């Protein structure tokens, strides 16, 4: 049977992730939603403790990053991520996981170019493109006097 590339792509799509999209997408929705609910709970609690609205979001982010780093160290975050997919990737906890996991994995290659460098495997690109986008935005609003 001759299979050209397009047909092969179609077969591949049928065979791999797509076939489970009807499970993956609701799971991402639920797990991602729950992580955000945890964030909302922390934020509300911090505000009740007297932290200003201005800082409560930041303290919430720090807490979630801490929890995710710890769970990654204990090898538990990956277990949740197996079911959560993008639900565990897209929240800030997924970012923290992407910081810790490669750093931990490549620790054996040394503290500088192993741990220290691999810490930025994912964080690096995210910061590079995020900050660049924000500087471009800043230049646009400055030049065109939009603020």
């Amino acid at each position, binding site marked *: 049977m001759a299979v050209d590339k397009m047909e092969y792509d179609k077969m591949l799509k049928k065979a791999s*992730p797509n076939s489970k*999209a009807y499970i*993956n*997408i609701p*799971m*991402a*929705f639920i797990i*991602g*939603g729950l*992580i*955000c609910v945890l*964030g*909302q709970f*922390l*934020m*509300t609690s911090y505000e009740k403790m007297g932290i200003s609205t201005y800082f409560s*979001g*930041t303290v*919430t*982010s*720090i807490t979630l*990053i*801490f929890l995710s*780093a*710890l769970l990654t160290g204990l*090898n538990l975050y*990956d277990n949740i991520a197996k079911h959560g*997919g*993008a*639900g565990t990737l*897209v*929240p*800030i906890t*997924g*970012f*923290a996981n*992407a910081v*810790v996991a490669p*750093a*931990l994995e490549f*620790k054996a290659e040394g503290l500088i170019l192993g*741990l220290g460098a691999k*810490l930025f495997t*994912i*964080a690096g*690109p*995210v*910061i590079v*493109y*995020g*900050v660049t*986008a*924000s*500087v471009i*935005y*800043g*230049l646009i*609003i*400055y030049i065109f006097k939009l*603020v």
Partner: protein
Amino acid sequence: MEILMEYGKAFLIGGIICAIGQVLIDYTKLSPARILVLFVVLGVVLSGIGWYQPLVDFAGAGATVPLSGFGHMLAKGVREAVTEDGLIGAFTGGLTATSAGIAAAIVFGLVVALIFKPGDKS
């Protein structure tokens, strides 16, 4: 009751944003790293055109916890800094607003990577 509504909205919007990420994983060949970059840049763009703040006002952590919220923080920081300080604000605003998150990720990342042993990937 009001607090339940708050959690409900955070769940709904946070869930939808993550589901969009899952759709991208399942139906495109985007790697997780590209998805994270995409969400941050999208957060900057959506915040820039004024669409993200209403989402934050509506959903709270449902909009700030996903990485698009990090992009929103970058853009919001730049906007405030340009308003206050002019041109230099375009360069200072983003990292200033997100500094706590970045510092936390670096420090907790370092400490955890130092203390724990790499687990098996099974």
